[in-house]
């Protein structure tokens, strides 16, 4: 009946994958969409340029939670470079439903937050002159 709220979207909303905290994330960021009060914290465990662990916490609408659940599944095991190359379209494809303009921010909050976490991480490494992790900050 409702093509936006397909069963698998609601399933991801009710039981999001990778929901929880990482004890020692190498990168993390809290993103928010103040218009709707959505808030997501993304935690990444990166080593040798590969996203080995990922988890998120937060509250939000079905679209933003399902998108975070699907995105975290997707990036686990990918290289940082691959994740950095992900576009909004990639996320919309993952979600697989038509998102109206007013909901785009909800759908893309998770990607946006991941991107911020990676950028902060890269900046930190550059600043501290720490060991290159294979990520190429741009």
């Amino acid at each position, binding site marked *: 009946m409702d093509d936006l709220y397909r*069963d698998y979207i*609601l399933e991801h909303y009710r039981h999001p994958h990778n929901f929880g905290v990482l004890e020692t994330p190498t990168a993390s960021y809290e993103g928010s969409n*103040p218009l*709707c*009060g959505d*808030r997501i914290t993304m935690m990444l465990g990166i080593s040798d340029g590969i996203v080995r662990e990922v988890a998120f916490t937060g*509250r939000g609408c*079905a*679209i933003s939670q399902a998108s975070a659940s699907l995105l975290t599944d997707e990036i686990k095991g990918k290289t940082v470079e691959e994740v950095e190359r992900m576009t909004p379209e990639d996320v919309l494809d993952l979600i697989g439903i038509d998102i109206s303009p007013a*909901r785009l921010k909800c759908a893309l909050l998770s990607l946006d937050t991941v991107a911020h976490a990676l950028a902060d991480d890269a900046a930190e490494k550059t600043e501290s002159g720490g060991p290159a992790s294979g990520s190429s900050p741009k």
Partner: protein
Amino acid sequence: MADVVTTTPPSQAKPARLDPHRLRADFPILATLNRFGKPLIYLDSAATSLKPLTVIEAVDGYNREYSANIHRGIYEMAERATASYEETRVKVARLINAPHPREIVFVRNATEAINLVAYSWGRHNIGRGDSIVLTEMEHHANLVPWQLLVQEKDGDLEFVPVTDDGLLALEVYEALLHLRPKLVAFTHVSNMLGTINPVRQLTEMAHAAGALVLIDGAQAVPHVPVDVQEIGADFYVFSGHKMLGPTGSGALWARAELLEAMPPFMAGGDMIREVHLRRSDWNEIPYKFEAGTPDISAQIGMGAAADYLMSIGMDAARDYEQELVRYALDVLPREVPGIELYGPAAEYRGGVVSFNLPGIHPHDVAQILDRSGICVRAGHHCTMPLHERFDLAATARASFNVYTVPEEIDALAAGLRDVVRIFNR
């Protein structure tokens, strides 16, 4: 409120019961269908109201027939435009029972009116250590301009708390007044809780403490009788687009002595008397505050909206909307198990009902309701601090106006049951 009846025009005096089904014919948009072929069920009137045909035609008439600039033209069309524009001032003054039309300053919206007061009155009257008292239920429009002002002037903001019932904590207000604030600013009707504040009492208390009073009437003028003289306010602001008028219209009312003492806000054409290269002096009020070509078409439209509201009668509008709220507060909890409602009991509130469904984000609620042609708002409704106060990330909000009918509240209840069904399937 007996004064209102005696000081307002006859049309407002008879509290004839309002017939919403008859009124609906005046709103062309109510005859349209959404992309799913469903009729429009518009429950977002607190964001902006629908517009009756007389307003639509007032704007269109100006654009088609006499779209001249005002005040400086000698030819017929310019005189007609000037006359219509100035008539709005008279109509708006009558609607809120202002003593004189020259106390009505036209602005784009309530937000601009408050910024005007903050910049013009505020920057010349608030100094280091001076305090301004606001409330926790203010719309961002009646909060952020004062934040900027006290940051610049090193003043203080104090806040009247909101009780769990959604009312202002009057005993704390009383205590805050001992700080002898320079200004007290509060909303007449809350756009999230629906609370109708006791503005006359609040104003008297503020005056007794030596403060001036600004009232944000954005949610009041369209819904309850407003009599600025009976309230005793110093500044009263509202938006045209929420009172059945066009976007781009709005008004600041202030007592003439205040306006006369205030320096200009924006500068440019029409607000001056004489301009030389290095100095200028100002036109008389209200023109001193209306720099440049105003939104002539929108203000003319607001005049038509004021006429429309007065022809209904604001007592009738208030009574009818209170019926609607009473109905909604009765039907929704009964028909939608688990729904959480915010705000005070019906007798203290205007046509606003904010709510949440357990475990379902209001964005999802609004989106699913849209499929049934039902328009509600989801988010913080420009009242983030009030949402923080109730520890809410967001709410959904249904809000009414004179064209809202109980059947639409039934449709909302049915729509909400659908939302629950979809999420629990």
